[in-house]
């Protein structure tokens, strides 16, 4: 009984969703035709499917609710980028200021330095971090002893599970003024160097430690693709006298190209989305000149200083750049190689 009731309710909801066509029909047609239209709709494939399968929607409710609250309401909250918003204000009676927050950021003397820091950190990280996992995957794949390959994979994946706090803590221990690296430098006759208090060391430390942590993990997906390469092609190439290295260049790499392009699109889309959680942990008075990036600036303006509207505008600017980069990368890849994310 009860489920019957729910079903009709559900069907009505569908009628609402069905859109302007049915609305228009309902208002302009006479009563009789309305009923027949309703009947027609009730017997349509869509309505029958809905009656049969609406219970699936119940399974979606928790996930949809959480996503709506913590992902979609914040998107609506982006409106405060156009307001003079202070913590405690209400978004509905906000003081609208148009693009003032954006122009304020663009005319900030630190705008270009922060943009530059963000871009450089990401691009330098990308130049090493993108090819390295592919190279490692190819090397692991060609290892003849599979037990060793498996062992190496276990070793390489390990650092991925170290937390950022611990990773940065290890950096402080190793590169601190009295850490292992400085001990080695001194024992070889060099001078102790404050890696964490100098601007020059920040980017290399950041990028190398990120790669140390993730090269193995990122190579898994390429390894999977490599193990799917057609063996017949390898045999044919071998009979033609191709060396192992030539087979990598002409059989393996072309075969995993689709995966490489997908990963490339994704990393270009994330170019400006560098991990600020790690940057925040590595910031010191000494390296602020190169380590202050847009995302950390957002954190400081918004959370620490309470300039919520201004900080949101900067964050929005950053994610729009990311989105545009992603779309450009995706369209370009689609045009030239038929590989695309969406």
């Amino acid at each position, binding site marked *: 009984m009860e489920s019957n009731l729910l079903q009709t309710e559900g069907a009505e909801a569908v009628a609402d*969703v069905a859109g302007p066509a049915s609305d228009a029909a309902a208002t302009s047609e006479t009563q009789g035709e309305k009923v027949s239209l309703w009947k027609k709709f009730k017997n349509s494939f869509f309505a029958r*499917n809905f009656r*049969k399968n*609406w*219970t699936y929607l119940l*399974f*979606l409710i*928790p*996930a949809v609710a959480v*996503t709506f609250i*913590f*992902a979609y*309401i*914040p*998107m609506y*909250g982006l409106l*405060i980028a156009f307001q003079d918003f202070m913590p405690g204000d209400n*978004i509905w009676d906000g003081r609208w200021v148009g693009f003032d927050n954006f122009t304020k950021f663009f005319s900030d003397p630190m705008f270009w330095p922060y943009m530059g820091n963000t871009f450089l950190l990401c691009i330098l990280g990308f130049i090493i971090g993108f090819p390295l996992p592919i190279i490692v995957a190819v*090397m692991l794949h*060609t290892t*003849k002893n*599979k037990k060793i390959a498996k062992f190496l*994979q276990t*070793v390489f*994946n390990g650092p991925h*599970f*170290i*937390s950022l*706090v*611990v990773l940065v*803590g*290890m950096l*402080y*221990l*190793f590169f601190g003024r009295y850490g*292992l690296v400085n001990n*080695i430098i001194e024992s070889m006759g060099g001078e102790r160097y404050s890696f964490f208090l100098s601007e020059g060391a920040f980017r290399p430390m950041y990028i190398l430690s990120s790669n*140390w942590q993730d090269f193995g993990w990122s190579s898994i997906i390429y*390894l*999977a*693709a490599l193990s*799917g390469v057609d*063996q017949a092609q390898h*045999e044919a190439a071998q009979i033609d006298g191709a*060396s*192992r*290295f030539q087979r990598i260049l002409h059989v393996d790499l072309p075969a995993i190209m689709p995966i490489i392009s997908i990963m490339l699109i994704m990393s270009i889309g994330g170019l400006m989305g560098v991990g600020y*959680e790690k940057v925040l*942990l*590595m910031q*010191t008075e000494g390296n602020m000149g190169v380590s202050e990036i847009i995302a950390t600036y957002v*954190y400081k303006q*918004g*959370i620490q200083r309470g300039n*919520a509207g201004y*900080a949101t505008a900067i*964050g929005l600017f*950053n*994610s729009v750049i990311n989105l545009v980069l992603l779309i450009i990368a995706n369209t370009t890849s689609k045009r030239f190689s038929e590989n695309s994310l*969406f």
Partner: protein
Amino acid sequence: MENIALQNEVTSPAPVKQRRKRVKETAGDRVYYIITYVILALLALIVLYPLWFVIVASFSSAEAVFAGKVYLWPVDIDFSGYAKCFERADIWIGYANTIWYTAVYTVISVLFTLAAAWALSRKDLPFRKFWMIFFTITMFFGGGLIPFYNVVSDLGMLNTPFAIILPGTVSAWNLFMAKTFFQTGVPDSIVEAAELDGANRARLFVSIILPISAPIIAVLSLYYAIGQWNSYFNAMIFLNDSNLYPLQLVLRDILTSAESSAGGDSMYENMLLANQLKYVTVIVSSLPVFCLYPFVQKYFAQGVLVGSLKD
């Protein structure tokens, strides 16, 4: 192509066929293999040495570590770092908090994700396309830090465990991974048979789908649990009360405190102890993850593979 990738697991032994038809190795090939092995061995060293050094240093005397006498093996074995670590109440409060945050978060996340993934994997889910887009958008665009903070704050969750546990419960990446698992792993015939037998969808999910989902449950639990175990940022912005701090936030204060230069004798002593404590806390905080890691790493890798499948 991707389907084949899933069938031959990354680490599965090479097909027998390859062995049978081995063409004689040329000198060039030998050079290639030698270079490969050398590089791989170097990489393994680069990965392992820092970890090994932390372990060794945590067992050595603080003076020896500080004076640079420790490289490969412990020098003047000394457990005072561990003793000091066990005295620190904040570390253990953090540990307890992290354990229960992680446990509750993982259970909720896995349940929400599995249920939604199961629904999304069914072709006859009403408005399926809409729901797919609904979740996909969150992978590429979001409100950013401040609006997110405002939502949590408006819900009255500031300085409560809810702020740590609820916000990240459903990740679109994990959701789609589980959806792909159901699509490739659960034959339609099972579902149809159960429906013919008159099982309703809740019954079907609990008594048929969940039991065959062990692999994906393992992967999801591990992903969510590790994510929560290792995170510090949400706790940093949402919590004030140090009794609620998770382990990572406590560690942040211990591990990333600014450098100090040696002054008088007592300061020197303090610095030595502080330094030793850092090595010990790295070990103590990462121990659970690393004890589990060798046993569960194949599930992690599987997750990446399933996630890479497109439908």
